[in-house]
């Protein structure tokens, strides 16, 4: 198969402006471009939408307020009133992942959430941030988190390592969930789109399937942004309340 026709070619990183600092490759790639685009679009969408700040919102302002209220309620339901100070972070994470996922649905664009580096970095920031908040808030009491209540002390040497491993596995499951969903979906789309031409007249069947799959992919893009956010909220809840 020629280069560019592979279903995986869409995930290739292309250096658009090569920059090197020492041995570090910090080139401006297509991935960076779409991240910048996402941030610019999200900021413009939110700021321009609230520009008039009317008491009775217009269409655009309603959409912006819808996003705000949605995340605010999510945070209130999962964390409670103590989660208020962390609302800007949670909202930013949600909008970044959501718009990034949706940008990936535009043909010829690049999905930066389909790269484990990106999602794992985000998951690591969430994980480290939450752990630091928990330690700052509860000091040494944080470590009782790893000892389930009502367990005989004899079991502790076995259970505490298991709990610690379970805790450390959080950023992996958080990042791989988003990355795998995006990667699998976009690859599947390309694979089935490849059948359209090669099957000739019967190509209408894969074509219909691709149309349906595109709808499903948009749902997954929304859902995975939501899942990433709700998990961030739940980890924050654990950190603030230690259950």
């Amino acid at each position, binding site marked *: 198969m020629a280069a560019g026709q592979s279903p995986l070619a869409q995930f290739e990183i292309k250096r658009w402006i090569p920059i090197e600092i020492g041995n570090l490759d910090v080139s401006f790639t297509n991935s960076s471009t779409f991240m910048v685009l996402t941030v610019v679009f999200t900021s413009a969408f939110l700021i321009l939408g609230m520009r008039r700040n009317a008491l009775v919102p217009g269409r655009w302002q309603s959409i912006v307020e819808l996003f705000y209220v949605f995340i605010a309620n999510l945070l209130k339901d999962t964390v409670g009133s103590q989660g208020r100070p962390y609302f800007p972070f949670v909202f930013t994470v949600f909008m970044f992942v959501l718009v990034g996922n949706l940008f990936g649905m535009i043909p010829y664009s690049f999905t930066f959430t389909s790269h484990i580096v990106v999602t794992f970095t985000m998951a690591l920031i969430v994980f480290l941030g939450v752990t630091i908040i928990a330690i700052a808030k509860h000091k040494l009491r944080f470590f009782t*988190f790893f000892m*389930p*209540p*009502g367990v005989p002390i004899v079991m502790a040497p*076995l259970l505490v*390592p*298991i*709990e610690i*491993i*379970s805790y*450390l*596995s*959080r950023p*992996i*499951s958080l990042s*791989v*969930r988003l990355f*795998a*969903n995006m990667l699998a979906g976009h690859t599947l789309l390309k694979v089935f789109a490849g059948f359209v031409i090669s099957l000739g007249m019967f190509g209408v069947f894969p074509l219909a399937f691709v149309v349906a799959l595109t709808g499903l992919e948009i749902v997954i893009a929304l*859902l995975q942004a939501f*899942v990433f956010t*709700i*998990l961030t909220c*739940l*980890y924050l809840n*654990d950190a603030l309340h230690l*259950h």
Partner: protein
Amino acid sequence: MSDSKQNRPINSLAKRIESARKKAQELSRDKKDKKIASGSTLGLALRISLELISAIIIGIVIGWLLDKWLDTKPWLMIVLFFLGAAAGILNVFRMANDFGYTVGYKKNSKKQVKKYRN
């Protein structure tokens, strides 16, 4: 006679409304539960396998690093592989308990106690 016959539906109206409301509530709750439970079955399957595998990977990596540091190849890795597998099963167990995204003990154990009591 006919009077009481006409009155009967009105007399029991409150009761019937109550029972209908209860039924509707239960139905919607069932639907909600089902929606949360199934979501997309593929997504659920992915989530379960992910929870299991990520814990095992973390166990193996920690074991491997400790082995390198303490020069005890390969014993700690083997021990931590099993601990990681246990942690993975624990993750899956917690997740499967209420099909939610909750992690940790207290919340779940409280819920479970309630479940067993009822």
